[in-house]
C-alpha cells in the first residue's frame, strides 16, 4: 500500500468519525449553544480535508486552494454569528 493510499484511508476514517460524532450529538439531543461551535469546527475540519485531499488542492497554487477554504470559513463563521448573536 502506497503512502498516499494510506493517507487517503486515514482521511476517510477521520471524516466518518466526525460524521458519527455530529450524528450522535443530534440524535441524543446533546446540541447546546457551546456545542454548536464544536460542531461547526468539526464541519470545517471535514471540509478542509475534502478540499485538500479529495479535491487535491493541497498540491495547487495557494490562490486556488484559498478560494474554497475562505468560502468555508466565511459561511461557517456567518452561520455561527446567526446562532450566537442575541435574539432581539
Amino acid at each position: 500500500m502506497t503512502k498516499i493510499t494510506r493517507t487517503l484511508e486515514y482521511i476517510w476514517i477521520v471524516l466518518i468519525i466526525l460524521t458519527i460524532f455530529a450524528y450522535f450529538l443530534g440524535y441524543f439531543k446533546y446540541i447546546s449553544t457551546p456545542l454548536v461551535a464544536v460542531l461547526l469546527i468539526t464541519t470545517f475540519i471535514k471540509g478542509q480535508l475534502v478540499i485538500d485531499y479529495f479535491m487535491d488542492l493541497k498540491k495547487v497554487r495557494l490562490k486556488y486552494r484559498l478560494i474554497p477554504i475562505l468560502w468555508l470559513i466565511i459561511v461557517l463563521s456567518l452561520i455561527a454569528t446567526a446562532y450566537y448573536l442575541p435574539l432581539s
Partner: protein
Amino acid sequence: MSKNISLKEAYPPGDLAIWVIIYVEFITFALLFLGYAFSRRLDVELFNASQSVVSQTSGFVNTIILITSSYFVVKAVHSIKNMTKETQQESNKEASKWLLFAIVCGLAFITIKITEFSNIFGMGINLSTNRYFMFYIMLTVFHFLHVVLGSGILFLIYKKTKINGYLPNDSKGIETGASYWHMVDLLWIVLFPLVYIIR
C-alpha cells in the same frame, strides 16, 4: 545561488471551466445556507419543532455514503493518473471498479433521498408549510439534483474506462468529473449539520 522553485501545480485538477461552475455553486449554496441560518433567528421555536420532523438518520447515512463515494472517486482518479503505457488496460479496469462503487453510492443516496422526500411530502408538507420547510426543500432538492447530475457524469466517465478510453497523461476528463463530485460532497458536509443537526 539557490533558486526558490515552487513545486505547486499552476491550476486545480480538471478543466478550469468546472472550477468556475464550482465557485458559482459555492456562492449559490452560501446564500441558501445563510438565508436558512438568519431566517431561523426570526422563529427559533418553529425551526426546532420542524427540524424534529426530518430524519437525522437518513441525513447521517447519506453523509457517510457521499464521503465514501468521494473516497472511491479519488481512488479512480489515482488509478488513471498513475497509469503508464504498459498498465493502460489494468488502470482503466481499476478505475472502472472504483467508479462503479461510487455510482452505486450515488444511487443509494438518491434512493434514500426519494424515500425521505416521499415521507415529507406524504405528510402534506410543501414549500409554503413554513419557513423551515421552505429552506429544507429548496436546499435538499437543489442538492439532490446535483447528486443526480454528478452520478450521470460519473457514469459517463465509467463508460469511458470500460472501453480503456483513458490514456497515460490523459486524466483531465476524470479529474473534471471528480472535482464536481467532491463539490457535491463538500456542500452536503455543510448542509447536513446545518439543516439536520444544529438546533
